[in-house]
């Protein structure tokens, strides 16, 4: 419908634009149509020249989005300062004018670790933010019961403190790119107009389409073995689940909602005087017995402070702001009667799913998913406790049915078959690479494969040792290096092995190898990243700065990917 000359301009523009720019334009234009009013094009010099983009991230998505937007803002002549919320000087908040928050939700509707300080700060009222004009982008995942909760809280609190919304909060599901761009185009526009009138008075009902949850599969556990030998400090379960119709790719995870242990539920009930465990009550417009509710639906361990607060007001007692499980709450701050206990049920959060990286490959293990789960052990004032889901999975006998959903991980994928890969996966991090290797073995990929694995003791903790030996003997694995931290006086970890192999490692990277890291986030992933940058610096004869840029470059090209937790 466009006349020749306009069409040409458009096509040129499209050709010369990146995917992101296009989707931005898309959002921009659709908005204009939406408001049916012409606006001056953003490319014109904007009158606002200072915004702060503060992000709170756990696994890096929010950061990626924030830096990306800052770059775009600059293109539009707006000087945007990007800062991580744990670096952010809280006193500056009062001075801020334009303040954009990009924050994900973690744990049980909680903010990421790095955003806690900020989150708590804005929740302690007693100060005002008259100047503040803000908007929130909330990253989340619809498969979690409290979708984008942290973002919601921040958006709400900033308003309570007197801040003015310049664009409604945008929630984004796991595939966040599109919605995020839409939000930013709106923000940019209002910034460019610089019209107080653009302030959105109150939160509008969320417009972003909320993807309808994830497909839930029902599988059957066909194998459950503890991979650690006698004398190990650990229990790591190799679990195989048969589920014919399941669809996934190597690199994906599955999500599982655990059940609470009977014993825990029973003791809790024993502390609720006169309660009838069999009594049915409504929950999310279904009816459950109180017992089932506690066993299958409600999180009763490690309650978040918000819940503890509400509990305090129900039992009308002073309770310090800490995480604590329901049982101890009931012990220390008993409920008056059954009625009060039912009231408490009302404030408990649903049990959140736990994610487990798949250790199987669609090509090699058709109709099955395998996971590698380490029993989570921790102590709370000298009492030894086990993680709910890992212990739950450890308890499962074969032939038990189990429900799960598949959690795609687009940023953790095998490269083209002829590309070389370096896999760093200590502990349960091996799961992802058992999947990768099985996949590459089954599909006969020609690229070379190098694995780094680490655990505590060679004799009892070498997860999947015989499979790794077979892959090495058959040439699927080109190189393997292992680090066992406790077999000698000094601790040796994967990063030490990487340093020993530094020259070779850098050679592989130079010739285009993709690097993958999977496993525990703290401290492992941090140490490994440092080692990698150090190796690039030393063997690439670069400065620290160059090494860092090289590394970021790899990330952007998708040649460095993490699946850490």
């Amino acid at each position, binding site marked *: 419908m466009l006349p020749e000359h306009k069409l040409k301009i458009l096509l040129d523009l499209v050709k010369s634009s990146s995917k992101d720019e296009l989707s931005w334009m898309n959002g921009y234009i659709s908005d204009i149509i939406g408001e049916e009013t012409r606006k001056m094009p953003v490319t014109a010099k904007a009158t606002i020249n200072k915004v702060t983009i503060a992000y709170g991230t756990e696994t890096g998505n929010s950061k990626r989005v924030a830096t990306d937007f800052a770059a775009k803002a600059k293109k539009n002549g707006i000087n945007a300062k990007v800062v991580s919320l744990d670096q952010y000087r809280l006193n500056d908040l009062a001075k801020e004018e334009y303040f954009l928050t990009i924050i994900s939700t973690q744990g049980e509707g909680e903010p990421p670790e790095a955003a806690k300080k900020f989150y708590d700060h804005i929740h302690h009222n007693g100060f005002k933010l008259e100047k503040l004009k803000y908007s929130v982008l909330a990253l989340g995942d619809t498969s979690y019961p409290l979708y984008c909760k942290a973002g919601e809280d921040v958006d709400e609190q900033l308003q309570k403190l007197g801040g003015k919304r310049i664009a409604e909060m945008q929630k984004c599901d796991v595939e966040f790119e599109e919605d995020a761009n839409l939000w930013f185009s709106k923000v940019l526009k209002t910034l460019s107009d610089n019209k107080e009138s653009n302030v959105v008075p109150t939160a509008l009902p969320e417009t972003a389409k909320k993807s309808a949850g994830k497909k839930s599969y029902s599988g059957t556990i066909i194998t459950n*073995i*503890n*991979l*650690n*030998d*006698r004398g190990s400090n650990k229990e790591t379960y*190799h679990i195989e689940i048969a589920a014919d119709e399941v669809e996934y790719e190597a690199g994906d995870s599955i999500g599982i909602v655990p059940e609470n242990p009977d014993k825990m539920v029973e003791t809790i009930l024993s502390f609720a005087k006169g309660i009838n465990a069999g009594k049915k009550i409504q929950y999310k417009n279904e009816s459950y017995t109180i017992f089932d509710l506690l066993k299958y639906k409600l999180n009763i361990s490690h309650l978040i402070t918000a819940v503890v607060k509400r509990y305090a007001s129900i039992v009308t007692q002073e309770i310090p702001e800490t995480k604590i499980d329901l049982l101890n709450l009931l012990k220390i701050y008993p409920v008056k009667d059954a009625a009060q206990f039912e009231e408490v049920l009302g404030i408990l959060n649903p049990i959140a799913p736990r994610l487990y990286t798949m250790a199987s490959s669609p090509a090699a293990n058709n109709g099955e998913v395998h996971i590698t789960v380490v029993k989570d052990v921790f102590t709370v004032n000298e009492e030894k406790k086990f993680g709910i889901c890992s212990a739950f999975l450890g308890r499962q006998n074969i032939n038990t049915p189990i429900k799960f959903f598949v959690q795609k991980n687009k940023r953790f994928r095998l490269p083209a078959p002829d590309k070389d890969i370096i896999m760093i996966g200590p502990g349960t991090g091996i799961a992802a690479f058992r999947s990768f290797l099985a996949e590459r073995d089954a599909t006969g990929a020609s690229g070379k494969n190098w694995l780094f694995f680490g655990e505590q003791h*060679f*004799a*009892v903790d*070498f*997860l*999947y*040792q*015989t*499979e*790794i*030996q077979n892959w*090495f003997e058959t040439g699927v694995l080109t190189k*393997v*290096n*292992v680090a*066992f931290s406790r*077999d*000698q006086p000094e601790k040796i970890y994967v990063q030490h092995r990487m340093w020993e192999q530094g020259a070779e490692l850098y050679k592989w990277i130079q010739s285009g190898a993709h690097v993958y890291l999977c496993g525990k986030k703290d401290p492992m992933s941090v140490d490994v990243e440092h080692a990698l940058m150090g190796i690039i610096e030393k063997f690439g004869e670069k400065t620290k700065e160059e090494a860092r840029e090289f590394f970021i470059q790899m990330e952007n090209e998708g040649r460095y990917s993490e699946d850490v937790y």
Partner: protein
Amino acid sequence: MEEQHNLSGIEKIKQASDGLRGEIEQSLKDEITGAIREGDQAVVKFHGMYQQDDRDRREERAQKKLDRLYTFMIRLRLPGGFMDAKQWVAMHSIAGDNSTGVIKITTRQTVQLHGLIKSKIRPTIKSFSEAGLDSIATCGDINRNVLCSAHPKQSPIHEKVFAYADKISEMLMPKTKAYYEIWLEDEKIADKKEEEDPLYQDRYLPRKFKIAIAIPPNNDVDVFGNDLGLIAIIENNELKGYNIAIGGGLSTTHGNPSTYARLGTVIGFTDTEEKTMKAIYEVLTVQRDYGNRSDRKLARLKYTIDKYGVDWFRTEVEKRAGFKLEPARPFQFTERRDYFGWYQNNRGLWYYTVFVENGRVTDDEQAALKTALLEVAKTNKVSFRFTANQNVIISDISEKDKDSIQKILEKFNIIAHTEASSVVRKNSMACVALPTCPLALAEGQRYLPNLIGKIEPLMEKHGLVNEDIIIRMTGCPNGCARPYIAEIGFVGTAPGKYNLHIGGDNQGMRLNKIYKENLDEPAILNELDNLFSQFKKERTIKESFGDFTVRKQLI
């Protein structure tokens, strides 16, 4: 010397091993397996180690996707079984840090540690070395640990005789520096000439070679079970020289009639140290040149001698030595035992022989033996002597220190334990067998204690409680606990099944014979019940059980 054809695989490995180096350096670097390379498994034996795996754990580990639990057993070189207090302390902590923790006293007067994983071998050998201990040539086709009658009370010149164990061991050590290079990471030697080995060359011996020295009248070392035995000839407290016995060997193979146990043959006497050493040396060279290098089952000295004849062999040795052996001197063995409890030697030093069931030094319900011996060692007022019956003598204690040692032994119930154990239990031995020994067909040290527990009541029933009958058990016919020269021998044939041997004498001068085959426990107890009751009724005064069974022609 005849040219030999179709050499066995091991022969090729030895010769290709570049002075017993093999590919060990690479084997140690193979990160994903606990094993070492095939060829190296033969080579490390010369360094005193065996690759093993815990056979009890194989199935379950396979389930867990874990490789076999490969570990290494290391055996120390302790000529005459001697170790000082500091060395004991070192060994104790090494065992705790790197191995299963059990200190295993062997039937050849030394100790073994089991369960070292590959990455622990170097640290272990280094720590041993710092304590002045090594494991060179304690396994492999070479001269092994040299035995000597253990107890100094046996003779005023025990010390003089004992010194030979060390001299012989030194003389017969391999010249290669591989052990120091690989395990202690010493400088590689530039000039291989330093390593030239006129005795072993690059072939070493066709098979293991064992030497023992006995001081009559006690044959505690089973001198005739060795390839070469020296019998000290002592006249009015003077060492005159040695009778030399050759061709002892106590192993057989089920279903291989050409294998047999053999006692050493006395071939003569040497009067001076120089001649004795020379004669020993040449026995090895003759075996080196004439021993069978194609069939390892027939490679021991005993087969070489029976092939060429004793006289030929003696002449060949004399020719090489350059002198004739004198006729053997008379000697007599009247016993074969350890002297449990306190004894004093001629110089007034005190000795306490501790009963260590099957040589396993560890803390158990009956006695905290390992802890006790550590405390004893820490006093630094003692030394240790291992016996060929898997026991230990706390040694060389001066009069003034005796009480303090006594107190420690009492505190940990060691004395009570030694005294409370029955005569038959103290006389018995079993080999290691399961779970570590790859050749085991049946249980050894894990089973005998409990079988003895069922034999004791039988002896009581027939009033034989104080008879020192010698009972020995092995998990296979290799004979590591010398069952073929026991009065009652059990040789494993299959799980829970043993051949019952009887007819050996009490002094270790006569082999026993198979009496019944493949017996399970009830059958064993039934047979012994009958034999004991017959023995009780029909024995002559002082007649030993072994002699009785022969006189009665039971075998």
